[in-house]
């Protein structure tokens, strides 16, 4: 029955190729299409997300260096859901506030706590940035192999069909091979954008994280100066 179908196939539209394919090959093709959908979903999501993050960083830096009082900035930001530099700033300020409200004595301990709080927030932020990039990498490396598997299985079936029909005419062989090759084509179609997107987004995520780290270091230095000034003034007051 298989060979009859093979021999009778004269039109080679994509749809007929797909419908002629065996069960395994169909499954592989569907899986690869799903992977492609997932890849492009991530691409769209990340593009929007990174754009938003970059804009937030720009805005925050502008506001931060505008000479506005840090207390005031903290008050406006602590009410909102913040991300990126804002989140780092809020976490550091929160720790600062808590320490001074409870009358912390050791300035070194305060500095360490603030740094820790900022590190944790930074880690969380960068994790959000790099989320799902792993699946892009997986799709990029595995999809060609999956497609190849589909091709091999398809060609196997088509050769079995040739053995059954006892004809090596190219017209008999060609549709089966074309259908099998379609699996590799879909695999490459999914893999190539995934690889490109992975490289681009991991580089972007690295840049954004570095920017946030730089801000965290800078803010840490500012807070350290403040702590020193506060200690100085409190000592002078004690004297």
């Amino acid at each position, binding site marked *: 029955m298989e060979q009859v179908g093979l021999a009778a196939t004269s039109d080679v539209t994509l*749809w007929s190729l797909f419908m002629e394919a065996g069960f395994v090959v169909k499954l592989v093709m569907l899986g690869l299409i799903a992977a492609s959908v*997932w*890849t*492009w*979903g*991530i*691409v*769209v999501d990340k593009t929007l997300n990174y754009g938003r993050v970059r804009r937030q960083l720009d805005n925050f830096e502008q506001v931060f260096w505008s000479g506005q009082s840090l207390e005031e900035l903290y008050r406006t930001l602590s009410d909102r859901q913040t991300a990126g530099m804002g989140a780092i700033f809020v976490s550091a300020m929160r720790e600062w506030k808590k320490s001074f409200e409870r009358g912390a004595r050791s300035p070194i301990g305060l500095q360490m706590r603030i740094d820790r709080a900022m590190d944790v927030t930074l880690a969380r932020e960068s994790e959000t940035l790099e989320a799902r990039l792993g699946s892009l990498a997986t799709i990029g490396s595995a999809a060609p192999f999956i497609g190849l598997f589909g091709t091999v299985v398809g060609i196997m079936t088509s050769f079995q069909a040739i053995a059954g029909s006892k004809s090596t005419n190219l017209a008999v062989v060609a549709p089966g091979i074309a259908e099998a090759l379609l699996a590799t084509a879909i695999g490459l179609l999914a893999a190539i954008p995934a690889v490109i997107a992975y490289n681009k987004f991991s580089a972007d995520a690295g840049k954004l994280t570095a920017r946030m780290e730089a801000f965290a270091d800078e803010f840490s230095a500012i807070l350290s100066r403040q702590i020193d000034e506060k200690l100085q003034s409190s000592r002078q007051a004690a004297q």
Partner: protein
Amino acid sequence: MKGSLATSAVLHALVLTWALVSLGSPADFEVADVEALPVDIVPIESITQIQQGDKKAPAKEKASPVPTKKPTPVENAENIGDNDVDLKTPPTPNTKPVQNESAAAPEKTEKALPTPDPVKEEIQKVEEPEPASEPATEVAALPEPKQEVKPETKPEPAPAEEQPAENPEAEALPDKVPTPMAKPKVEKPAQTAKTPERKKEEAKKEQKKASSAKESDFNADEIAALLNKQESSGGGAKRSTEEAALGGKKTTSGNTLSQSEMDALRGQIQNNWSIIPGMADAADVRIKVTMRLDPNGELIGEPEVEATGGSDAARRALMGGARRAILKSAPFKGLPADKYDSWSEVVVNFDPSSML
């Protein structure tokens, strides 16, 4: 993320739809119609080594032309055919009935000519081969009773007037009665009235007389045969007795020494060749001898001896042996003289290992 996934799914759906529509079925390859050219492989032997035979007959081992029926009248004839004269032109098929009808016409001209005997002889010479066509013989046959009358009464009118009643063709005769033609005619019908063949033979005799009388290179027979449009003209005078087999028009000089003739030549050399048994590496040596011979079988110049394979020493020893054997066995005997073309320069190969 959900929005992005939805966007991606929609994009994929769009792309797949587009692909299904536009990439659907690729255009078929345009295969140009190439006509196969028939190729005949023509061996050169068909030109260089033609044996005389018949072009249309089936191929046989020995080529021979179509058998002829008559004994040959010409010595050393070269062209096959039933003709009396050895002509190079191929035999043409016999005359069509149309030409036979026209053959009747000359009779009138004969009568019209007021010339006496010598002129008439000449005309007969030229037009003799006209088959005395049947209507003519009939006419000749009819006057049979008249002939008896003729010797008595020379003027023809009386019998001629009787004819019109019997034969419409004879109507022409009365008009020309007054011509003096009547006289010579009397003799001829008397002998040839019944059979046209006899008439022909008679004519031939006359021809031979005429040609011999002139005694020159001028071959009137040949001219007559060429001029003759009624009978099949061409064809040679050489007779063939065998069954027709495929072959050419003429035997060309191409021929080769047969295997047995070659073996005889090789044997003459081998008889004079003493090969030392047990020579090392002699098994692989092959000797090729090229020699030129004159028609008596004598060597012309030095024979060329080449050796391949085996060791250097064995090659040199065997080459020397071969040269001595050839010089000793010259002159060669038993070579067919008519094939001298093919053994004037002859190449003989030896495998010394088989001669030990």
